[in-house]
């Protein structure tokens, strides 16, 4: 099979954040210190090599970047300052843009400005839409819930489900493309259907526990990440299934609100931690920040703060202010979910568990094929 080489690939990766790939001289230190690098997925050195050689297709089909959690040990021990950890991060961004068929992701990663303007545009559109809709249907700005509510919970609920449906469709399409690049189009690999079933349990397992991340020597990033994921999930469940209970008031409904509080603390705490760490470049993971990372964090913190504010305003009886704040809140949440989930950083919530799932399938398929074929060669053969 002919292999296409893209000599510009290494330059293209620069906008995604990988700047020092060329420094690598392939000593293999990084792969050996990486707690995740296990046969048959040896990284980060191998992807560094692919990049240097411009093997775009190989990279597009590789799962390795998703198996890396950026604990940063590789970058710390790299004798050449080639920043293998950052390269893996950039590859994740690059892959995200490759999985995305709309090209929006690519535009975001290539230019922070484009993303920023899109986010602002989406926010304004959201505000405009909701205000228009509320005014047209004769909602009362002074009423937060009940029949006259400016924005009735039931309608918001429908909107949420509609948005979720669109996002899911986009994300699933991208996931489908990921499958095609990494497993589907590989004709040499025989992956029977039962293998997919056999490994299916891995998907929810990794999604919920993030347990691979815990393999890192440093436990803090994993703990922070887990807290973020759990908080986010709680919030998602509350909003998608219990919005009306959340909405009612002004009394606090402890059955749902207590979870809301826990999730808010989790979201806010982890976001502030991440912001501080990025500013201080505290750990390798936080040392290099792409523009998209900042936008993501700012949106998150914006959504959390406005969410808290509208909650308080509603509880203390300032319904008009609560309504306005809620719209502002939506101005943060809608772009955050609508743009980040399918096209940017948040998509990794799907890609990572998927990669874990695919990689297990791939590894087993390969192993079976190898068993059928020849004896494996020994490591370190003498040159005779």
């Amino acid at each position, binding site marked *: 099979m002919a292999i296409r080489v893209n000599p510009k690939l290494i330059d293209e990766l620069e906008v995604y954040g990988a700047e020092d790939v060329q420094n690598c001289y392939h000593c293999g230190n990084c792969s*050996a210190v990486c707690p995740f690098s296990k046969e048959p997925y040896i990284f980060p050195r191998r992807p560094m090599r692919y990049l240097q050689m411009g093997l775009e297709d190989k990279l597009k089909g590789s799962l390795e970047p998703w198996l890396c959690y950026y604990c940063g040990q590789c970058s710390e021990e790299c*004798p050449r*300052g080639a920043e293998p950890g950052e390269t893996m991060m950039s590859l994740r961004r690059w892959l995200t843009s490759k999985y995305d068929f709309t090209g929006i992701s690519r535009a975001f990663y290539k230019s922070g400005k484009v993303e920023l303007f899109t986010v602002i545009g989406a926010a304004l559109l959201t505000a405009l839409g909701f205000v228009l809709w509320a005014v047209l249907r004769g909602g009362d700005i002074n009423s937060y819930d009940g029949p006259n509510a400016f924005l009735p919970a039931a309608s918001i609920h429908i909107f949420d489900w509609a948005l979720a449906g669109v996002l899911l469709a986009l994300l699933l399409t991208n996931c489908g493309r990921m499958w095609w690049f990494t497993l589907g189009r590989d004709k040499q690999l025989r992956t029977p259907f039962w293998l997919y079933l056999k490994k299916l349990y891995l998907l929810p397992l990794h999604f919920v526990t993030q347990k691979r991340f815990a393999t890192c020597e440093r436990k803090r990033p994993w703990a922070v990440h887990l807290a973020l994921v759990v908080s986010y999930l709680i919030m998602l469940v509350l909003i998608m299934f219990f919005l009306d209970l959340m909405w009612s008031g002004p009394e606090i409904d402890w059955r749902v609100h207590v979870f809301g509080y826990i999730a808010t603390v989790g979201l806010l705490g982890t976001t502030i931690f991440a912001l501080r760490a990025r500013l201080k470049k505290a750990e390798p993971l936080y040392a290099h920040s792409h523009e998209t990372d900042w936008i993501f964090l700012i949106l998150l913190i914006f959504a959390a703060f406005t969410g808290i504010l509208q909650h308080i305003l509603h509880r203390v009886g300032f319904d008009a202010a609560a309504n306005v704040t809620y719209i502002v809140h939506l101005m943060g949440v809608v772009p955050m979910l609508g743009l980040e989930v399918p096209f940017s950083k948040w998509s990794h919530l799907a890609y990572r568990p998927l990669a874990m799932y695919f990689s297990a399938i791939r590894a087993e398929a390969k192993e079976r094929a190898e068993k059928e074929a020849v004896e494996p060669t020994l*490591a370190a053969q003498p040159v005779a």
Partner: protein
Amino acid sequence: MRTGVFIVQANEEGLEGVNLHAVELYAANLPHVEKVRNLGVRPRLDPLALAEEIKASGLERVVIAGDSPGFFKPVFTRAMALAGADTDEVRLASFREHGATGMGTPRAESIVACAVYGVPFPLAARPGTTATVPGTLIIGGGVAGIQAALEIADAGKPVYLVERQPTIGGHMAMFDKTFPTLDCAACILTPKMVAVGQHEMIDLMTYSEVEDISGSPGHYKVRVRKKARHVDIEACVACNTCSEVCPRSASSEFDSGIAARKAIYIPFPQAVPNAYVLDEASCLYFESGGEKCGVCAKKCPKECIDLTEKDQIVEFEVGNVVIATGYDVYDATKIERYGYGKFPNVITALEFERITNASGPTGGKIVTKVLRHNKRKKVDEWVLDPEGPPPNRVAIIHCVGSRDAQHNPYCSRVCCMYSLKFAHLVREKLPEATCYEFYIDMRAFGKGYEEFAERIQAEGTYVVRGRTARIVEENGQMVLKGEDIVQDRMVDMPVDLVILAVGLVPARGSDRLAAMLGIARDEDGWFSELDYNSDPTDTERGGVFVAGACQAPKDIPDTVAQASAVAAGVLKSVNTGRGLDSRADLSLSEIEARARSLARV
């Protein structure tokens, strides 16, 4: 000739002490310079765009100035061709090559001026000559110092050889075999050492250090401190009686610390001068302020031990100075992940040299250390016992401390080759053992070296591409972790002996010497030569030469060649009575004027 000056930088920091902005301004004021542009750090240049620029300014000559401007010569040559200009008029102003490191902005400016005038820098910056007295001081008695001393002394000229160890020989004296010929190191070196010891033209001062050098080229006043040796070199017959009775021991420097010596000792039996030395730091007599012991002095049959001897200062004048201070090896404890100092059977290359040396502590047997109970100290110790177990699996790790942004950026040049030599020695002495070399790139650069590398591989040494990441202990067994990048496998291998191919660093005290002599060192600490290509043995200071590994890591053949070249330079000045003056003293305007007259502008 309409000239454009383009400045390139190899890194953000630029060369130490060179103000690039000042250089730009200076260049802009030189005659015929139409354009000066700083292209920044490692620029990516487009020949078409450059050609446009060249055409637009009507340039007939371009000067690429900077750290290593040669990198950009091809793209500029292409651009000149595209612009229809003379491609021979791409001139380089190489700061590094012509010693701007340490010499500051004026030097960089004069290098640019010469390039702008189209005159080779060494030609314009040739210093004048000065009257020179015949004596030569050589600092350092390794193979470089020995070779230079013999060449000069054999020509009948006086030499003062100052060595800070009690014996001459340097590192080479510690080796068993030398690559790539696998000759016996001692067989080559010992006769030369003896010749130095006996030479009537060589005043050998061992256990001595140069304290001060003053004066000017051709007339250097030298003050040397001869440390009290407490043993009369002439009278000592090396009978070993004193060592036998001495109650004190310390670790042997010559055996790189893997064996002990007494407080009064001889580094090795072939030492030159062949006499014992009393080390005050480990001696009981000195520790007790003269109260205790002193038994060696009483027992010495020749009565040549003088416990009251004091340091001696000697002063003399020389015309030339040769620096031949060699190197030290990189401190392996700085690289924690290899576990040196933690695992007893992780050793450095110099330690291995001593283990495999027939005159070393194990009599040349390659063994691993074993845990023994020391009854006197009541502790368990790892000891090197000649009867100890030989290793089954030996791993040699290349580039330890070299080619590493976190340690030394440079290649130490000899480690690949000596590692292959080690593999050969292991396989020769322990045919049952497996030997692995973990390398990044195999640098077999010299005559017969590639063939040597091939031969070692053919002997059955496993050569694995991929530097080891770490040594760990798993269930009491040392395990080596790394990646085999050719086989695309992770390496996770139990090993019994790990040899670290430590890199070379400038000898301790080089900074002091450089300051004393007023010569520069490069960013890695090696002494800077006058001109990388055309004067690799001279320095900025007239009458001061560099030989051997102190100028840059090098192997023995190169060291010896450079030492002989130095001797030629020294003899030229001694024979004519006139030597070169210091280039360091030439001012910018002098060099510029000279370049101008040579170029006739």
